[in-house]
């Protein structure tokens, strides 16, 4: 019995020593980047894609020797698509994992919930997906966003709106900061163009049955319906609209809607729908850096990841590259130095230049980069880039 106990003791001691060494070695040679992403729940697809894109960037950078002589390491936490959870995992990443920079938090509402934590712990966060205008205008100097805010999307759309020929438009948006913000910004643009705006219907982020909203919208007589939500719910909206015999021109916004994934999920019901996308893997030569796009798509396919996810995964890739560049400029992996360095980042991402402009109240500005926006259409089960 005694011998048995001492054996356990020895094994445990050896294990402690071994883990201690591994832990120590890891802490010495890596720069930790905290990922706050929804890997489960209503926005799971978008979060998972971003993480996969980020992993490609990290592997690429590490293969070239890392940044300032150290390897990058992702510490990934799941927000469960819940803003409360997003704030608490951010705290965990900063306090326990001691990450020096963060990327997140996909949904605008989650990002807004995380923002006070950034101020509290003085850690910068790169925002890769959230598009609510409130994020960069709140006066949080730790925010650097590469995703286009809703008003930029709306402004890009304004240039082509007359060519599509919209007379009256309705909205169906997810009931959070992203959805409501998009409805507000697009309504402004449409009204400026003399297009009347009818109903603005909302859906809960976890809702699966949108028949009530669609039935109401069907009776409104609008020729166009703007839909803003994540790919899961969007699939259901397209499916249910088709089942109701609701033939309206559907335009989706937000860039996380993965047209190819929609085709896989709903088949014919996706035909004729238009989508504002922030990356065009279907037409690499139309992207700002064709070679980089082709390399990213090739690596993505090599890893056996779903093609349809590229339109959201590129955000993770661009985000990590921007973070790595900031660390390089800072010369050290310290939160305040990285925050300062973000202002000097100037690289060409997969979706255009990443260079932060000041946004928000003076002295407390957040950084906002202005990427490209594309309008694509699904025709006969294929994504096409219409010439407008």
């Amino acid at each position, binding site marked *: 019995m005694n011998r048995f106990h001492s054996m356990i003791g020895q094994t445990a001691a050896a294990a402690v020593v071994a883990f201690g060494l591994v832990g120590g070695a890891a802490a010495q040679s890596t720069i930790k980047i905290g990922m706050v992403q929804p890997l489960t729940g209503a926005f799971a697809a978008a979060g998972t894609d971003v993480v996969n894109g980020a992993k490609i960037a990290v592997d690429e950078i590490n293969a070239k020797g890392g940044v300032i002589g150290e390897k990058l390491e992702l510490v990934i936490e799941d927000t469960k698509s819940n803003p409360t959870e997003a704030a608490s995992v951010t705290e965990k990443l900063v306090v326990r994992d001691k990450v020096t920079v963060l990327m997140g938090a996909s949904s605008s509402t989650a990002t807004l919930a995380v923002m006070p934590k950034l101020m509290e712990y003085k850690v910068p966060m790169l925002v890769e997906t959230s598009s609510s205008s409130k994020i960069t205008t709140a006066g949080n100097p730790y925010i650097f966003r590469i995703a286009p805010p809703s008003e930029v999307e709306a402004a890009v759309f304004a240039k082509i709106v007359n060519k599509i020929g919209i007379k009256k438009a309705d909205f169906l948006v997810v009931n959070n900061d992203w959805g409501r913000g998009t409805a507000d910004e697009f309504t402004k643009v449409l009204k400026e163009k003399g297009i009347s705006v009818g109903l603005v219907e909302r859906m809960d982020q976890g809702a*699966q*049955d949108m028949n009530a909203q669609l*039935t109401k919208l*069907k009776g409104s007589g609008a020729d166009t319906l703007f839909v803003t939500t994540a790919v899961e719910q969007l699939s259901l909206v397209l499916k249910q609209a088709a089942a109701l015999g609701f033939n309206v021109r559907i335009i989706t916004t937000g860039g996380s809607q993965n047209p190819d994934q929609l085709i896989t999920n709903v088949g014919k019901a996706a035909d004729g729908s238009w989508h504002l996308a922030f990356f065009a893997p279907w037409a690499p030569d139309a992207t700002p850096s064709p070679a980089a796009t082709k390399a990213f798509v090739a690596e993505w396919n090599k890893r056996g990841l779903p093609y349809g996810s590229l339109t959201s995964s590129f955000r993770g890739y661009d985000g990590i590259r921007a973070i790595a560049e900031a660390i390089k400029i800072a010369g050290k992996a310290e939160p305040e130095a990285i925050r300062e360095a973000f202002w000097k980042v100037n690289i060409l991402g997969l979706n255009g230049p990443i260079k932060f402009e000041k946004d928000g109240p003076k002295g407390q500005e957040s950084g906002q980069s202005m990427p490209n926006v594309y309008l694509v259409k699904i025709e006969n089960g294929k994504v096409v880039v219409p010439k407008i």
Partner: protein
Amino acid sequence: MAEFLQHLVNALVLGGTYALLGIGLTLIFGIMRIVNFTHGELFAFGAYFVYLFAMLLGFNFFIAFAIAVVGGCLLGAAIEFILLRPLRGADIETTMLVTIGAWIIMQNTELLVWGGVAKAITTPFPETPLVIGAISVSPLRVFVLVIALVLIGGTYALIHRTKLGMGMRATFQDSETAELMGLNIRGIYTATFSIGSGLAAAAGALLGPVFLAAPTMGDLASLKAFAIVILGGLGNITGATIGGFLLAIIEELGAGYISSGYRDAMGFLIIIAVLLVKPTGLFARAERIG
């Protein structure tokens, strides 16, 4: 008017599956006095079983559906046999905690096996809707309603026409007396939990293809099932059936005419109102025992 009728048709289709969920839960509570938190996971299980057999293994959709229902019954029986049988006679809080634990384990297992991203299930039904006047409904939804009604009818027949059903009703009225009369209470408990779970799995297997299969889909289903049971009165099968359809109508009309953002809140507002005014449920009979 056309819009109103369309709302009612939508509600009718959804109500059938809500009723299935409610009946399963109310059976288990009425007969076993167990507040069953695994119910929603059985719902998710049903959807994933259809996904596994129809989408991954290439079975016929209808066979996959049948397997999901039988699988739900077997899983329910296993849960009863392993977790709840040893706890017979324990107070309601103890069994509730055990089912909460089982719920968490099951949901995380689904997450581990299937990942967090929702899965779409395709069916052999055509996508073109059936159009009757101004009302459209997809053939899949008609199938869902028909099967739900058949299962509801089947459950009624089982309870009112079979020997097992008679045993279940006797246990419901007074389990001790029923046992003294020589009824195999253990068997009845296992059968009850198994049938209740099978109905939840059937609801999930029906709604999975209509919506998407996701690991967290059971949470809302569980909440709604509890809402339906409270609406209809604890242990009241007719109440659960009517409650299921009623909840669907409230949600649908609430979303259509009041506020679409609060669709899922509508039902719960009604529940609060019912609990304030008639805490035993809308359809509770005065003479009900137990």
